[in-house]
């Protein structure tokens, strides 16, 4: 439930079926022509570009220091001086939201990479070889699917994240790993069904009949065809994982000071929601708009790739 | 007077790639108790015509831009939606090609037959059930009383098509449109279904419009034949005349492409070239790029209907010569 990507898996897997049927090149060309005319696509691409720019060069967007807490200006509402006001520690909310972009985006990106790699490898192996390997891998993925996302992440993070050890790298790594560990089965299922479809295609059958090695078939023939649905999924997942990071930080088990992320800001602000709502609302808005951009992009690409929706 | 008359019907599909002019002035008619066969290559517009007559085209993308569909002298296209709906199934009914997808998978066959009787005729549940069993009996489904409770997927292909026919007959239509009713079936079953349709048509004195690719079937059951090409009727005649002396090069080519017993082993003549792209229908006679008798005029002037006598009409500049052989 807290993993919004789960529900898309079936829809995306269906795209896989469709995608594998057509010739990949023609399909991508069609998809691009389709995408070019969609305003939602351009809106989301623009937002993502801006967010990436902020993450790379936060200094371009603010001159304020995100880690300068002046208690005398604590919880001051938005003003010309500080557009988003100050939080309870007297931090500049706007500056922190700008500087928090990097960690939020990074966690989302790394978690996505992890999920896609884990899920794709297992999925394509399960789909290609079938039989007992498929059965075992599928059961393993069932095990991970059975754990509710938020719950599993809290358990993992509280158990492994012993207090006192607050190195930023370590926390980021743990958060990324726990998101990836709990989410890879979705990517695996998408990849698996795409692989099963691709395996039944004539050119794959032909390659097998000609004695190509399994490795060659997988890498050269199947992967290019199975990638489209996984990429659609990963776009949406990237947005979802940024949201997941924030949720975990909100619960106090994710990133925390000295790392600045939107989730950390929201966690800092949540207990003062009555007196300083702006400290919660602005990072939430950053978060929502970014997640929205990725979800919209994924949605647009999915529709463009799905011949049934034309 | 004709029971059902289609006149100068134009239908276009407004798609993203452009406007496909699918029907470009279709005219045909069918009298009570008569069977009209509609022939033509795939994509020539046979089904679209039938759906336009039924009023079940999807709009958008399909738009009827011109023409009349007269049933008992009333133009269906000018009727209110409500009144038109009343003529469906009771005036004109339709049998679809693929009964598996045309029947709703989640309702029993009985439910789908009874539904019309209950909604349209106000019959009680029990009466409707009784009538449904009778209808299934009429289309020779064995054990009808029990099968009425089964789902479409539990029927064999032939049985499913019989059930579909029973459903279309529920409100005793005066015209039955059968759109390739046997194409989805095994060859052995095809003949049985055709026999059934012919028999029902005779018994009920219905008019039937039979859309088909199968010239053999046409020769057996059709009283008259209309040949379609690129959204037009290019030739119409009674069955015997059309087979003996086709008046349009396209009809002649169709006849040639038919496998014949007396020519076993020789190569089949197929019609050269591709059916026209409906986004860009050729100028003049739409058949001219493929026509063996083409002259210069053919790519310039649209041929008018040439009357060859006794209801034999052909849209070819050289109709008279074609008939002459």
């Amino acid at each position, binding site marked *: 439930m807290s993993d919004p990507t789960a529900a898309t898996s079936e829809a995306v897997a269906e795209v896989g079926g469709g995608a594998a049927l057509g010739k990949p090149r023609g399909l991508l060309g069609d998809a691009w022509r389709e995408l070019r005319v969609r305003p939602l696509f351009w809106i989301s691409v623009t937002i993502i570009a801006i967010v990436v720019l902020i993450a790379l060069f936060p200094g371009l967007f603010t001159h304020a220091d995100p880690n300068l807490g002046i208690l005398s200006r604590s919880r001051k509402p938005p003003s010309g001086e500080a557009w988003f006001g100050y939080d309870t520690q007297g931090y500049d909310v706007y500056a922190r939201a700008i500087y928090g972009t990097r960690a939020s985006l990074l966690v989302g990106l790394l978690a996505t990479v992890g999920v896609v790699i884990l899920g794709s490898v297992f999925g394509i192996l399960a789909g290609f070889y079938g039989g007992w390997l498929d059965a075992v891998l599928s059961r393993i993925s069932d095990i991970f699917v059975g754990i509710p996302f938020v719950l599993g992440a809290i358990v993992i993070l*509280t158990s492994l994240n012993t207090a006192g050890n607050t190195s930023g790298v370590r926390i980021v790594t743990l958060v990324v790993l726990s998101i990836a560990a709990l989410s890879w089965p979705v990517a695996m299922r998408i990849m698996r069904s795409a692989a099963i479809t691709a395996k039944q295609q004539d050119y794959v059958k032909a390659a097998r009949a000609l004695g190509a090695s399994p490795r060659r078939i997988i890498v050269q023939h199947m992967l290019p065809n199975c990638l489209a649905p996984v990429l659609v999924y990963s776009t949406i997942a990237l947005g979802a994982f940024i949201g997941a990071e924030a949720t975990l930080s909100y619960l106090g088990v994710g990133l925390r000071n000295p790392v600045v992320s939107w989730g950390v800001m929201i966690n800092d602000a949540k207990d003062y929601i009555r007196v300083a709502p702006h400290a919660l609302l602005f990072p939430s808005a950053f978060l929502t708009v970014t997640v929205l951009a990725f979800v919209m992009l994924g949605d647009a690409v999915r529709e463009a790739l799905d011949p049934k929706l034309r | 007077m004709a029971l059902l008359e289609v006149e100068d019907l134009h239908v276009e599909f407004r798609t993203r790639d452009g406007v496909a002019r699918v029907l470009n002035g279709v005219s045909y008619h069918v009298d009570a108790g008569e069977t009209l066969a509609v022939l033509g290559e795939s994509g020539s517009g046979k089904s679209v015509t039938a759906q336009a007559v039924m009023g079940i085209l999807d709009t958008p993308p399909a738009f009827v831009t011109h023409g009349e569909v007269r049933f008992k002298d009333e133009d269906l296209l000018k009727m209110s939606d409500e009144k038109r709906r009343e003529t469906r199934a009771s005036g004109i009914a339709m049998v*679809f090609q693929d009964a598996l997808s*045309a029947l709703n*998978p*989640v309702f029993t066959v009985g439910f789908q037959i009874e539904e019309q009787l209950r909604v349209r005729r106000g019959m009680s549940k029990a009466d409707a059930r009784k009538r449904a069993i009778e209808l299934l009996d009429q289309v020779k489904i064995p054990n009808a009383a029990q099968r009425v409770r089964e789902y479409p997927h539990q029927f064999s292909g032939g049985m499913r098509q019989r059930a579909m026919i029973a459903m279309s007959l529920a409100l005793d239509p005066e015209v039955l449109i059968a759109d390739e009713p046997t194409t989805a079936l095994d060859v052995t079953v095809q003949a049985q279904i055709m026999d059934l349709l012919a028999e029902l048509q005779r018994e009920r004195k219905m008019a039937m419009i039979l859309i088909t690719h199968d010239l053999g079937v046409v020769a057996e059951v059709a009283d008259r034949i209309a040949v379609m090409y690129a959204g037009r009727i290019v030739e119409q005649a009674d069955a015997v005349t059309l087979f003996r002396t086709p008046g349009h090069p396209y009809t002649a080519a169709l006849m040639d492409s038919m496998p014949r017993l007396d020519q076993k082993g020789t190569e089949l003549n197929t019609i050269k070239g591709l059916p026209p792209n409906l986004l860009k229908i050729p100028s003049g006679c739409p058949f001219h790029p493929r026509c063996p008798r083409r002259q210069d005029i053919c790519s310039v002037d649209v041929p008018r209907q040439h009357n060859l006598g006794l209801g034999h009409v052909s849209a070819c500049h050289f109709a008279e010569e074609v008939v002459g052989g």
Partner: protein
Amino acid sequence: MGRYVLRRLFQMIPVFIGTTFLIYALVWAVPGDPFAGKCGERPCPDQYVSAMRAQFNMDDPLVVQYGKYLLNLLQGDFGKTFSGTEVIDRISVTFPVTVRLAIVALIIEAIIGISAGIVSGLRNRGFLDSLVLVSTLFLISLPVFVTGSVIQLVFGIQLGWISPTVKGTGFADLIVPGFVLASLSMAYVARLTRASIGESRRADYVRTANAKGLPVSRVVGVHMLRNSLIPVITFLGTDLGAFMGGAIVTEGIFNVPGIGGLIYKSIQTKEGVMVTGLVTLLVLVYLLMTLLVDLLYAVLDPRIRYE
């Protein structure tokens, strides 16, 4: 059918064991002193520690510990916490609250999601359709804690229309948290319904229903809906299981005394028995819901037969 259910139950055993073992290992096998802070400021007396270690079989290898735990569980014994509270007592207080919350959420999700989906599915590419599409995108992008906090802030604190935290645990009290819990899935239900309706609009059997001269209301309400709702209803089924595990955030915001808050507290205070007990329960609910959904599928779609 019976054989199918048996086989499915049988297949669930390894998944159940795997999931619970994973959680068990995470809770019990990680380094760190489980008794830290359990006895106030001072370290726990050795006597207490050894008694506890014996009670929780902590000197056995992990697998054996887990095995013993599972055996007790099979006899309905969820165990006691360090402080001697019976886990089952706490569960029997909190579990019904979360079940009620999940049911409220499910009803809200179904009503709003399905209606929005039908409206937008029938008006392909109209204004309402775009409105539904855009709002579902928004809902999908809004993390639950944002939705919850904003609703609490605006309607609870600023406007005073609702109480910022729940007053009781009856169905009516849980409407606002239920709405928040449902908000994300609501968007999915709307989109799923929309896609499903869009597909069945073009289905041949709808054309047949039209050819039969049925009124539009019947073509849509009977022929289209009955088919389009099959995937939606099964989605709702799996969601009920997911809601129970996903309620932590919502319960926290609105102070709902349900299972989520209990889990959260137990994790923080390292009450391992409580955590494993609750997670086991949730996994069980989830697995049974998936089975139920499969069976529901067979009921809804006569083409599906389980042998």
